[in-house]
Each structure stands twice: as structure tokens, then as C-alpha cells.
């Protein structure tokens, strides 16, 4: 009886698993069968992060468009947890989603036909002129050169430092790598933790290594790598990994502690005065200010370059973007929402209600932003390096994060770590 049951199960499995065709439709093809966005509904279902300004922006939109009802579902959705892919493939996902930006992530959805190309919407509604041209250029870096995302904001990563600790130990903001290591040494000798990092959940570790690689290889070389004509095993990039190893070797950064903490824990410790420096985006300081932390005793500077005299640049990356479900039934309502996102009123409202991301829009004069966000905006205007994790495809991004953890725990040499990233990048391309 048992054998009969086993044989039956095996036969059923074989019948299901191995149909005649070598290529079959994937599960949940709703978006593809819908024939693109339709216009049969005036209600919008939106899913995205819960910003301090979210409720205000939804309310203002509904006031301007009384014929459109909006349901905003708050919650983090991410590629790394699989929720974005699943929602879109289900065929009944929200009309609009706020997701992690960049061709490495959004490009996958675009290639699969799950999201709507927005070039026509941009052209017919004059949206292109409302956004920073460099941001629009970056969003077109996918395989077909079309725009699929409207960027909500950018992150600009710099070294944030504790001014009081620096003053107490007679330290100035370092301008080159040698000076940075000396600053670390002084703090270390005084019993202060020179740097904090939280790499357990990967993101912040990637920010730190990205800043060091930028300080070593420079913007042009990193631009080549991001755009496919350079390599992560370039000696200048490997040197960036070596800079991380040097920080650990010299006691500037406790690798074990950095691997044990997540990004939030490290940031929290830093804003409470638990360390001299940390690499975080502007949003960290803006959030701390909103949480009532006195951030006047903190400042920021770009990671100093390895070569004396070279330009010190912060790194930056697209942070979050709006994408449109290809199976939406609310085409015109979606377009109205996109027009709202690009409007100066939206920007002003978000700025007034606690925006912590650097705007991707052209910012009108007189717009009052958080000082940390304002600083990030100025840095973007002058030019920044790249935060690689935004631009790398899945496997290479994972290898990038593993490179950070491998160097922090001293289990990977910088050479092997960067070679691992390059191998995955080459395979992905």
C-alpha cells in the first residue's frame, strides 16, 4: 500500500514538474495578461514606507482630486524579502509601490514586464524637467533605456563626527587618509571608540566600504565599474578594501562589534555619544533631530581620499522610487499621483513635514529643508561618488555585502573579497 502511494505521488510529481515544453509560464502571470494599465477605476491603492509626511501628502492629494480615493498601505516592502516581486507577480498588487531604487532592482521588474514604462507620462506631463537630470539619467540605465521609476529621494553618505569629542582631543577634520588614521589613533589612545558601524543587516556595512572604495579609487573609476567598463578587482578598488582592513588592524574600528550590531544600533550609539565617527546617510542626522537629539554637536565630512590632494567626495545613491504596476486599472489616477509627486507643492509639503531624503526633484528657491538634507542636496549638486549596492545586480550586491562581513571578521583578504564581487558581477552581466 505504501509503495503504491509512493508511486502515485512520484507519478503526480513527474506529471506536474516535467511538462513537454522546455519553457513554461511562471506562476502568477497576472501583470502580463492584463495588457498594460487600464483606466476603469478611480481608486488608488498605494504601498510604501511610512514617512512623517505620508498622511499629509495623501490628504492633500485627495483634496485636490476629490474624485480619486486613495488607500495607502504603510509598510516596508523590499526586494531582499521578496515582497515586491510577489506583490507584482500576483496580478492583484497595489497600483503604485515605493521600492528600493536603482536599475539593479527596478531593472529586474522592468525586464519582466511587471512595471509600466513612464517615458510617455514624463513627456506628456512635462515631468522630466521637474527632476534632476542626473537622477533621470541614472534611472534610464536599464537594458532598454526607458524610465521605470520616479525617484522619491537620494541618500548621501558621509562621515559624521562628534564635534565635542574632536574638540576635547584637539582634533581637526582630516583631509587625507593619513590624517584620518591619525585622528583614529588619537581617539583610540584616549579610550574613545574612533568609529562605529553596524554591518549585521548589511546596508550600513555597504555604505562604509562604498565610502572607502570611493576614497581610494575615485569617482571616475567607480563610474566605469558601475557602468560595466571597469572591474572590482582593480588595484585601486582592492585598496579601498585594504583601507577597511587597516581600520580594523589599527583599532579604529572593532570588526567583531561592527558585525554584531545592526545599522540602527550603531547609529543609536553614535548619536548618544558612543563613538567618534560613523558613515551614514543624511537621513540619520535628520531622523535624530526629529527624535529630539541635539545634533548641533555633530558635523560631517566626506571620507578623505587616500591620495593627498585628491578630491574628497561623498558617495550617494538613489534611495526609494515609485513604480507603477503594469496591471493597474487606475491609469489616469496613477498619472495624477505621479504629477503630484513631481509638483513643487508635494516637495514643499514633504519638506515641511519631516523629509529626510535628499529630493530628486529640482528644488525651488526658498524651500526649507532639514539642514542635513540641505547639506546632502548641496553635495549632490557639486557631484558625488557612488554607493555601489544601489547599482549592482543581485548576486554581485550579495557578494559586496559578504565582502564587508568577510573583511570585518578577518576571514577574507581585500583581494579575495573584491574578486568575489567581480566574479559575481561578470557572471551577472
Amino acid at each position, binding site marked *: 500500500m505504501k509503495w503504491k502511494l509512493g508511486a502515485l505521488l512520484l507519478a*503526480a*510529481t513527474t506529471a*506536474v*514538474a*516535467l511538462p513537454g*515544453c*522546455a*519553457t*513554461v*509560464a*511562471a*506562476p502568477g*502571470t497576472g501583470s*502580463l495578461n492584463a495588457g498594460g494599465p487600464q483606466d476603469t477605476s478611480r481608486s488608488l491603492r498605494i504601498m510604501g514606507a511610512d514617512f512623517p509626511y505620508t498622511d499629509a501628502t495623501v490628504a492633500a492629494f485627495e483634496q485636490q482630486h476629490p474624485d480619486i480615493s486613495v488607500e495607502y498601505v504603510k509598510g516596508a516592502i523590499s*526586494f*531582499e*524579502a*521578496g515582497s515586491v*516581486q510577489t506583490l*507584482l*507577480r500576483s496580478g492583484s498588487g497595489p497600483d503604485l509601490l515605493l521600492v528600493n531604487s536603482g536599475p539593479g532592482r527596478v531593472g*529586474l*521588474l522592468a*525586464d*519582466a*514586464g*511587471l512595471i509600466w514604462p513612464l517615458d510617455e507620462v514624463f513627456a506628456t506631463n512635462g515631468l522630466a524637467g521637474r527632476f534632476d537630470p542626473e537622477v533621470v539619467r541614472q534611472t534610464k540605465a536599464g537594458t532598454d533605456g526607458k524610465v521605470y521609476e520616479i525617484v522619491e529621494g537620494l541618500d548621501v553618505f558621509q562621515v559624521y563626527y562628534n564635534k565635542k569629542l574632536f574638540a576635547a582631543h584637539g582634533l581637526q577634520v582630516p583631509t587625507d587618509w593619513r590624517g584620518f588614521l591619525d585622528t583614529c589613533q588619537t581617539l583610540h589612545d584616549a579610550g574613545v571608540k574612533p568609529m562605529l558601524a553596524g*554591518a*549585521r*543587516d*548589511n546596508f550600513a556595512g555597504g555604505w562604509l566600504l562604498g565610502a572607502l572604495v570611493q576614497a581610494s579609487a575615485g569617482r571616475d573609476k567607480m563610474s566605469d565599474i558601475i557602468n560595466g567598463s571597469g572591474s572590482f578587482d582593480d588595484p585601486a578598488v582592492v585598496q579601498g578594501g585594504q583601507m577597511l582592513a587597516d581600520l580594523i588592524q589599527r583599532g579604529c574600528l*572593532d*570588526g*567583531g*562589534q*561592527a*558585525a*554584531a*550590531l545592526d545599522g540602527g*544600533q550603531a547609529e543609536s*550609539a553614535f548619536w548618544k555619544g*558612543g563613538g567618534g565617527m560613523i558613515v551614514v546617510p543624511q537621513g540619520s542626522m535628520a531622523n535624530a533631530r526629529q527624535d529630539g537629539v541635539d545634533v548641533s554637536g555633530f558635523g560631517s565630512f566626506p571620507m578623505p581620499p587616500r591620495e593627498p590632494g585628491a578630491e574628497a567626495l561623498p558617495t550617494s545613491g538613489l534611495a526609494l522610487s515609485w513604480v507603477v504596476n503594469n496591471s493597474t486599472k487606475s491609469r489616469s489616477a496613477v498619472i495624477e499621483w505621479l504629477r503630484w509627486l513631481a509638483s513643487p507643492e508635494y516637495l514643499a509639503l514633504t519638506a515641511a513635514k519631516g523629509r529626510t531624503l535628499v529630493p530628486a526633484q529640482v528644488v525651488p528657491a526658498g524651500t526649507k529643508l532639514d539642514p542635513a538634507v540641505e547639506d546632502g542636496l548641496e553635495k549632490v549638486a557639486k557631484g558625488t561618488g557612488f554607493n555601489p549596492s544601489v547599482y549592482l545586480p*543581485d*548576486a554581485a550586491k*550579495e557578494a559586496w555585502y*559578504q565582502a564587508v*562581513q*568577510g573583511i*570585518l*571578521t578577518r*576571514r*577574507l583578504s581585500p583581494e579575495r573579497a573584491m574578486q568575489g564581487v567581480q566574479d559575481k558581477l561578470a557572471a551577472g552581466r
Partner: protein
Amino acid sequence: MTSTRRTALIAVMLLPSLLLLAVFLFLPLLRGIELSFYTWNGVAPVMHRAWLDNYARVWSDPAFLKALSRTVIWWAMHLGLAVGGGLVLAALISEIRWRRAQTLFRGLVFVPHIMSLAVVGVIWSQLYHPTIGLLNGFLDAIGLDKLAEPWLGSTGLALPAVGVASAWQAYGFYLVIFLAAIQAVDPALHEAAAIDGAGPWQRFRNITVPSLHNAISLVVVLAFINALKGFGTVWSMTEGGPDRSTELVAVYAYRQAFSLGDIGAASAAGLSIAVIAVVITVGFNRWRDRAAVGR
């Protein structure tokens, strides 16, 4: 009632359960088997048949083999800490003669098991916090600060540290099974042994443990299956890090699916571990049954 009507009645009564099993167990299982034979990134509209390539890739991936060996270590820890801890505590609680105190302790020790794995992860992450954690604080306070470690940041300590947290969450379940079995042991055996001069340890070793043969074998199987599924605590505490040192097979499969977009390999890894679990469980049960017949 005729035989036909009786069969029909049984079928009708079973139908709701069978439907639920079909929807929530058999169909996903069949889908998993199907996915393991295709390459798919989780977003593309089509999947390409890969025959057994996914299985070959997974079983030749050093990361999978390391994850498998970590899972064996994890199972051994789970067996020692959760099952062993549950057995010892069950024996101690059964020795409490004051009924109300026994009920109180029985309830208290079960509390960790009713917590979600995510909550357990958060609690233990804070306990292991390198600077403000209770564990390092305690070591500092008693002058053993040299032993303080970044528990979750060390590639050598992270797996045992998470294993302790996971065992803390799980032992209550095994304890309840053991306690029920202990309470079914004839008290006269203990009384006779006590009259003969046997101490608590001797009674535990020579009466309690042999009497729990069936309960122990059941718990070992459950612990084995639970250990193979080890994911929640690991993911909430370390996400498989640092440097993959806590990456169990379940974490490997999750990472393949969602971080790397390789649904086929993830399904192959998941099904591989399921087959291993079934084979070992069936083998263990057969051995147990034969041993029982031989006794």
C-alpha cells in the same frame, strides 16, 4: 447503516480536512517540486526547464555543503540544549510535591515557547549586545570582562549563541511532552526504589529515563525536524552572518530565493533537506520499532 453510506459519510467528514491539506500542503509541495526543475528568477514571465541542474548546482555549491554541516551542528545543539534541558526541567518539576507550585512552574517554563521567533530574536540580540547587553554587563560586573565578546559578531561564537536562544524558545514544548510522560510513570516504581535506598539521580537514570522511551524517541524526531527548519531565530538575530557563519540550510534557501533571485536552486535546496528529513525520520522510526520488538 450500509457500507456504501458509511463510506460516503466518512468521505464527507474527511473532505474539509483533505481540502485544507490539498490547498495548504500538497499543492505548495507540488509547486515546490515543479520549481526545483526549472530556472526562474522570481520575476520573469517564463521559467526554463533545467532538469536536475538545480540539484547538481546546489549539491556542488560549497556554501550549501557548509550550511548542511552547520545544520547538523545546530541539530546537535538543539538536541542537547532544548531536548536535554526540557527533560531535566520536566524531571525537576515533577519532583515538586506542592501542586500549586508545580502548576506555576509548569506555566512559567512554557512562556518562552509562546513567544514568536522574531521576538525571541530581538530579546536575545539585546542580551548579546556587545556594549549594553546583559551578558557582557554581567561578565564585567563579576570581574570577568576578559570573557566579554561581541557574541553575534564572532564567526566562532555566533552559531552557539543563536543556538542557545533557539533552544530557550523551544525547550518548553519538549518539556510538556516529557512531563506528561513522567506523570504517567507508576509512582509505585519510584516509591519502591526510594525504599530500596535509590537517590534522586539513580531514580531518574534507572526509572524515569527508561520509562520515557517512547516520549524521547518522539521528541528526538520532532527536534530533528525542527532543527532542520531552523530559520526564524537565525534570521532575526544574524541574517545568517557574520560572514555566513550562521547560515543554515533554511537560511541558504531563503537567501537563494530572495537575495539572489534563484528560485529553482532555493526549491532544490529546500526539497533536498525535506527528503533528508523524511529518510532519517523513517529510518529512525523503523529502528525504534525494531528495538521495541526486540526488548
